[in-house]
């Protein structure tokens, strides 16, 4: 390697020694708050036995399930057709709007499959979900029970 190239290498890596840690730490600091559970529930998660509410759409079916004493609730998402959005997130908004800034992230789904997510009980028994494409940053659909 010639001397100017040696100098250039050292300059670049000295700069990266500062910029890369800044980039990594900044990216970690701006991570959205994620639920403790894995976003993608394993398919082996058992569906709770009772369907409290159900909604059928052309591409998917959404059920709210519970156990026998309704102490536990579960959102069940069944893709009937392959979604045209390969990855999407489900948010729950108690204010019944489509603003995800006020919503709670429930989980992430892919184009195919069945998913189960833990759900917190609402006092008024109304549930409003938003299906959001986080790659294209737009709301795909909203579901209200």
């Amino acid at each position: 390697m010639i001397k100017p190239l040696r100098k250039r290498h050292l300059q670049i890596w000295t700069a990266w020694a500062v910029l890369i840690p800044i980039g990594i730490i900044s990216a970690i600091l701006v991570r959205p708050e994620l639920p403790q559970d894995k976003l993608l529930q394993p398919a082996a998660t058992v569906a709770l036995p009772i369907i409290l509410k159900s909604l059928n759409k052309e591409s998917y079916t959404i059920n709210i399930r519970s156990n026998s004493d309704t102490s536990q609730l579960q959102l069940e998402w069944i893709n009937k057709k392959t979604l045209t959005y390969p990855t999407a997130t489900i948010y729950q908004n108690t204010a019944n709007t489509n603003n995800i800034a006020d919503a709670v992230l429930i989980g992430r789904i892919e184009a195919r499959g069945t998913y189960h997510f833990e759900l917190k009980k609402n006092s008024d028994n109304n549930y409003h979900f938003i299906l959001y494409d986080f790659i294209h940053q737009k709301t795909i659909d909203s579901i209200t029970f």
Partner: protein
Amino acid sequence: MGASYLAVGWNRQKKIYDWLMFAFCVSYLAAFIVLTAIFNPEYTFETTLIRSTSTLALILLHVILSIGPLTRINNKFLPLLYNRRHIGVTMFCIVLVHGVFSILQFHSLGNVNPFVSLFTSNTHYDSLADFPFQSLGFFALIIFFLMAITSHDFWLHNLSPKVWKTLHMFVYLAYFLVVMHVMLGVIQYETNPVFIIIIAVGATTLITLHLIAGAREVRKDNIEYKLKQNGYVRVCDVNNILEDRAKMFCIENERIAVFKTAGKLFAISNVCKHQNGPLGEGRVLDGCITCPWHGYQYLPHNGQSPPPFKEKVATYDVKLVDNDVWVNPLPYPEGTERPGAVINIQNRKLETESVKGEERAS
């Protein structure tokens, strides 16, 4: 070294190198796909392919970027340098699969051209949390593509070494883009900390290696040679140079390699014409100074490659006064014949004793 351009100048060492690399890549992808099927069966095959190729490419990129400084720190890593470009091209192929499937998965199912969608679906360039990370990966892919298609020596000669090297230095920018592509992309939604750990450990290792290697080279370059006389600089004792080997000295602008061979001392430029390898770290084989990186050769007395090859390096005047080696740092035009300095019998006797002493010590 080849008199004409071949796609790949295969030899046994290259074949072993490439087979090992191929085996590693195939094993890694297979293991990733199998483990994903077991532990994350809800992932589609497309997602698994995107993730497996991305992680494999990231590992290969870290290996590629660590080879340079490792060879500076320890010569034992030199065999990894010989065919580093093969790893580079392989990495690009894997990254291409990742890129193509990502664009298909995320941007081709709508009614907008996928490449237009890539840049227009998310325009939050002013937000770190929502930054369009995919465009970072796209630009890194472009850099890797340009490097892969110009990786052959044909381009090194036709683009000129300066342009070629400048282009290939963009790998460092590509590395930064890849790190941020991962950190602003999958890390934002992945709860498993292993991804952050891989990136952090990888970056820390690379930065440390490069800074250590760089600091060592700067120290070598900054050694001062204070004894000067009539344009010559005293560089070392003749007994410090082993037979058919060299010592390197940075005098004024660039390093000079002083070789001891066939009872004489010769001084040539330390910089190989091929890819600026350190000739002084090579040895004399069959009467030719041989570059340790890719085997390019030069005759010691005139700095010319043996026919039919045409490479030439600059030569310098060297003289021996008692046991002191003096070099004139003013270079002659490349390929100029110089007589070298004869090592007389007294110096040789002293050299023999010195070499024996070194052998006993080692």
